[in-house]
């Protein structure tokens, strides 16, 4: 069985293992859920990276998804988890389709910095909207699952399990996507856009679609984070948040659709402890780690895993 066909099974195995083990480690559940939620955003970055693009503005959709769901909850009291997910995905999709018309024509630094600029626009807007709490943001009520609250004694595990399942389904879908003709266009576009055009495909159209997918993934990541943490604020759209996602993407590597989640977990782990022990060198550690990764392990941690497996 090839590596490509092995992944779905690995994912399923991981899902089962993780769901079974989790109750034994209740203190890890919050961290793990957060890591999975952020990993969704990074998964979107993986798609863009495979297409040869780096977005420094996924925070836009991450924040948008969270705020869309949060607002719907705040003003209309909606707490059903599926509705919230749908709202987040829909709002992200609409905005991504619109912005994609401009962004799909750019590459490299322009694409990176323009996406950054757009996320800062959202930040600038949210900070001035007092109805949404300005810089403080606001709290998000615990989600309900078919009427039953996920909160309560089993709240952590409930949220964790739900996130796991969502992540599993999404990752599986992305894996399948990369095996379709449109998915296969990603590395092709990255390597040689001219060739793609001369075979009769629209590079711009394909990039637009992928940008929208990445946006939706980030939006879902955002709403999951909001539900887990219980609070949202404009900081989610600040470019440094997007920068963190980029860091995790580089650290994880693009070798496998599961890589972003492994990377996100390691990141959250380090962040929690590094911040605790030395808050003034936390960013320095990040920067240094990123430099080391770029210089010595440019394909990310996943490539290290692959290398070790072959030994």
């Amino acid at each position: 069985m090839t590596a490509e066909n092995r992944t779905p099974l690995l994912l399923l195995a991981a899902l089962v293992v993780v769901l079974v083990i989790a109750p034994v480690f209740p203190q890890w559940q919050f961290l793990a859920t957060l890591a999975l939620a952020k990993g969704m955003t990074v998964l979107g970055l993986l798609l863009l990276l495979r297409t040869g693009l780096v977005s420094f503005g996924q925070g836009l959709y991450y924040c948008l998804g969270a705020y869309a769901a949060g607002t719907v909850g705040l003003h209309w009291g909606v707490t059903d988890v599926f509705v919230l997910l749908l709202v987040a995905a829909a709002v992200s999709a609409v905005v991504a389709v619109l912005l994609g018309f401009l962004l799909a024509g750019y590459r490299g630094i322009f694409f990176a910095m323009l996406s950054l600029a757009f996320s800062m626009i959202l930040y600038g807007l949210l900070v001035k909207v007092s109805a949404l709490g300005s810089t403080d943001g606001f709290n998000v009520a615990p989600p309900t699952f078919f009427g039953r609250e996920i909160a309560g004694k089993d709240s952590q595990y409930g949220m964790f399990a739900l996130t796991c399942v969502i992540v599993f389904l999404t990752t599986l879908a992305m894996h399948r996507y990369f095996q379709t003709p449109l998915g296969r266009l990603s590395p092709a576009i990255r390597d040689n856009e001219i060739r793609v055009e001369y075979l009769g495909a629209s590079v711009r159209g394909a990039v637009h679609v992928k940008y929208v997918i990445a946006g939706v993934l980030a939006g879902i990541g955002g709403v999951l984070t909001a539900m887990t943490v219980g609070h949202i604020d404009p900081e989610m759209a600040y470019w440094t948040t997007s920068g963190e996602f980029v860091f995790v993407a580089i650290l994880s590597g693009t070798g496998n659709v599961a890589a972003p989640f492994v990377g996100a977990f390691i990141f959250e782990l380090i962040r929690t402890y590094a911040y605790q022990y030395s808050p003034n060198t936390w960013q320095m550690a990040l920067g240094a780690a990123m430099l080391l990764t770029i210089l010595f392990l440019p394909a990310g941690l996943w490539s290290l895993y692959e290398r070790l497996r072959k030994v």
Partner: protein
Amino acid sequence: MSHLLAVVVDGVIYSSWLFIIAVGLTLTYGVMNILNMAHGSLYALGAYAAASFAGYWIAQGHAPMASYGILVLAAAIVGVIAGPLIERGLLRFMYGRDEILLLLVTYAVFLILEDVIKLIWGVDPYFISEPYGLLGSVDFAGLTYPVYNVLLVAVCLIVGAVLAWILRYTRQGKLLLAVIHDREMSQAMGIDVGRMYLVTFTAGAALAALGGALTAPTVSVVPGMGVEVIVLAFAVVVIGGLGSLPGAALGALIVGLVRSAAVHYMPEVELFSIYLVMALVLVFRPKGLFAGAEVRKI
């Protein structure tokens, strides 16, 4: 009418500040093809260094009027130390690689520098307001402006003129323009591109630091003050066209006036207006107002 004049004057002042902080960024990109995300940190370093040196100078009881020179000196020192350190110590190993990779490297440098600042200066704010108030104020069209702001405009014009003169009339400057125009050809013609890079990056760092140094007397110098700067500088530079000096000037002017208008008439959309202008310019001129020529690929 006087309201409109106020908008224009405020706009020009803000534009001057924008030009100083953006010109280093566009120069670095034009010559080296690197968008330096650490630009904001260099700006912050300039501010901190200026606050420290000028603060020390004034605390020692020396002539306060000389503090302006100290500000500039601080910026120069930051540029001359940080510039070569970053360029020789890190960037030069990455030349020729993908521009996005270099962007990420400068992003990593930004992260590191932010904490370096905290380690050296701590997290408490610094204040160095003497240079700001020292020159007093001036009345113009019924409004009062600190003379310091006029100084800012003057510095901007001087910097712009000096840079333009260097680029157009000195030998080094013309070589720099050649490299901006076509790197490979310049190398093939024997231009020491490596040295150009060192000089350019150092100049860019010094200019960023100058922006910070001149800002220090007007704000409280705190960690994270450079984080917003990179986005603003990028917007200015992109409107004008990456790598273009007149572009940076025009971009700064446009953004400055637009922002001033927003602040006066509709403050909620201040940030939004800047990026809206940027987006609009890009829709009609995808590479900015003074863009370069397209190269044939096949």
